[in-house]
């Protein structure tokens, strides 16, 4: 159902195809629920193609590029007709934008290469969708908590989101947004790096946790649940009393949600 609520400045209802990402689907459904809620609240419809699985990032980045190629084909096949694809994970968007064109070229399939080229302009990270496609910074959200924002590596150095997520967060009612020192320094996750190089990853995590805790924030947020899983995994082990929320979980709730859900 579409309606014009004044935010979008016109009846520009979009059918947004959601690529939730494999780890959000499996481990963090709340992120996906918040994305659906937010997009629908802003007057657009959400479509979730059930055939979707994984973009192939883990395989590609760990050196299993051959295994990643069929996953690229799947993604392109499933989303090729989408009006807009929304992905609430900058590292998966980076995988698609930075590597799919090269992978398609290497696959020696001109049809696939063309399909990737045509699809890429319609692939949005969530905050890109909100600001660049919907033209919004104020999404009418209410989140009365002290929050600090971690600028994940891919969001900064691959997608070049800059302060896009912060612009959205600053418009949230009730929020007490505190700046994270060393905001764009890697938290040490790095996918399989956290497993293969566990000790070095732990040292990097310790730095990030120190920065988060020094802000006095109750909530640490980012545009990637994967980084948050890492940062929060450490904070939870340390019983630090800081929780995580994907940016969608901050942008989704409104004042009418107070007392109705876990956000309030």
């Amino acid at each position, binding site marked *: *159902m579409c309606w014009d609520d004044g935010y979008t400045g016109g009846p520009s209802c979009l059918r947004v195809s959601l690529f*939730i990402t*494999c780890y*959000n*689907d*499996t481990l*963090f*459904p*709340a992120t*996906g629920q*918040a994305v*659906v809620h937010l997009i*629908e*609240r802003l*007057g657009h419809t959400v479509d*979730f193609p*059930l*055939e979707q699985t*994984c973009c*192939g990032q*883990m*395989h590609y980045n*760990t*050196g*299993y590029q051959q*295994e*990643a190629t*069929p996953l690229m084909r799947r993604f392109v096949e499933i989303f090729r007709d989408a009006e807009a694809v929304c992905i609430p994970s900058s590292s998966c968007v980076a995988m698609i934008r*930075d590597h799919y064109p090269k992978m398609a070229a290497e696959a020696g399939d001109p049809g696939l290469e063309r399909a990737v080229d045509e699809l890429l302009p319609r692939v949005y990270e969530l905050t890109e969708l909100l600001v660049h496609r919907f033209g919004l910074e104020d999404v009418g959200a209410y989140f009365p908590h002290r929050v600090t924002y971690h600028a994940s*590596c891919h969001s*900064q*150095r*691959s997608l070049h989101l800059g302060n896009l997520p912060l612009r959205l967060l600053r418009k949230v009612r009730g929020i007490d947004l505190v700046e994270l020192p060393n905001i764009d*320094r*890697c938290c040490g*996750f*790095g*996918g399989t790096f*956290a*497993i*293969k*190089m*566990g*000790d*070095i990853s*732990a*040292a*990097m995590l310790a*730095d990030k946790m120190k920065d988060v805790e020094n802000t006095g924030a109750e909530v640490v947020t980012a545009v990637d649940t994967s980084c948050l*899983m*890492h940062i929060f995994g450490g904070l*939870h*082990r340390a019983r630090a009393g800081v*929780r995580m929320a994907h940016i969608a979980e901050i942008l989704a709730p409104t004042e*009418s*949600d107070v007392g*109705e*859900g*876990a*956000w309030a």
Partner: protein
Amino acid sequence: MTIRVGETEHAQSFQKAALPLLEDAQLRKNVRHATDVIQRKRGIVVGETPDWQELRTAGSAIKAHTLRYLDQYLLQFEQACTAAGGQVHWASDADDANRIIVGLVQQYSGSEVIKIKTMTSEEIGLNEALEQAGIRAHETDLAEVIVQLGGDKSSHIVAPAVHKNRSQVRQIFRERMNLPDLSDDPEELTAAARHYLREKFLRVKIGISGANFLVAETGSVSIVESEGNGRMCLTLPDVLISIAGIEKIIPRFEDLEVFLQLLPRSATGECMNPYNSLWTGVRAGDGPQHFHVVLLDNGRTGILADAESRQTLQCIRCGACLNTCPVYRQTGGHAYGSSYSGPIGAIVTPQLLQMRQAQSLPFASTLCGACYEVCPVKINIPEVLIHLRGRVVREQKSALDPEALAMKTAAAIFTSRRRFEAAQRLGRVAQWPMVSHGWMRNLPGMLGNWTRVRDLRALPKQTFRAWWKARAKTDLTRGPSTPLRAARNLAQDYDPNA
């Protein structure tokens, strides 16, 4: 051919070599402090350069062009250098280069040499080769002096003693220079070093240098430095031997305009290096009267042959990627087991060694991209790291390797919705022995590396897709949902602790 990079063949994997370094609080403090200071300075001078991005683009383009026509530019350099009175030697590998240099020192009846600014000599193990031939090598770059006297290894490609603070330097100087009363006052320390070095500058007749740039057009060699010790080494001896990797070439004299802006800003956060030395052949009665250049391959042509990672050879050894790297920041350079550390070392070392050694290095990165962002010649280090990871997996990993098996299984799961959903259900069931109060704190196998310092939330009761399917059913019975209804539904369904 014996391609060698320092003592890499004896080095441990990165993750093992990192362990004692992570324990060394003093070293980590020194590395953090030094890299923070250099990064801050770099940020300021780069910020003051309005055409910085254009300079990067130009630097990258010049280097890419040079590599494309490297054979021609090398011959042009040889011709120009020879015409100016220099002599060019071609070394295919480390042993070859060492043989040439030892031979030259013996030819000029030398028993000692003074050295400046040559990482390449560390790469080929020159000091050890000289020692075996009974020739003493004295490092003269202050940081190299600290490393040499301390029996230590370089830990940074621009600041080799970055892991030492001044009280540690005092300790080394006290013992090795026999100065029991030396304080840790920086002026006193530099005065001691100056006294130690001056005597060598005046006495030793053979100098060995590296090179920052070789100019094909003129046959000139350039070195930039901060102390002036290089200038001494380059001008006082009778004989000067410069060793350079073949990738150090640039086509024209005027190309220095670009690189002499990029390099000091990236390396030390200065607009200009205090000492920029540039020399061409020999000049009668002025400076060294015998000048030799050793052009070193030692695996570089192998890198040149790989179109995907050729950009590695664009490196001008500024060290900016080390200073910004969150991994290097934790360990310093020793964990890389090579004369080349940090992100650039992680791609240079294993490639020089034809991917037969140092295979852990391409994995010593989170692919955070900070290195690419600062690289003055735009080497896409994360892209090369991924490419090299692929080579390690394809060329080195057995199909029965547990990681390879896990990855292939995961790929099989991800290529089918049915298998993916089954795996989600299976995970939910299989996790129960490890779950306590909704969390996993002690996972088996490789995943145990995660739970050693991090908790992992248990798989929730409902995956996102299960929620979506259930919601679609509800919506059908309710009719078209309104945004507010959707919000309420969500608020009810939403349980972060589920």
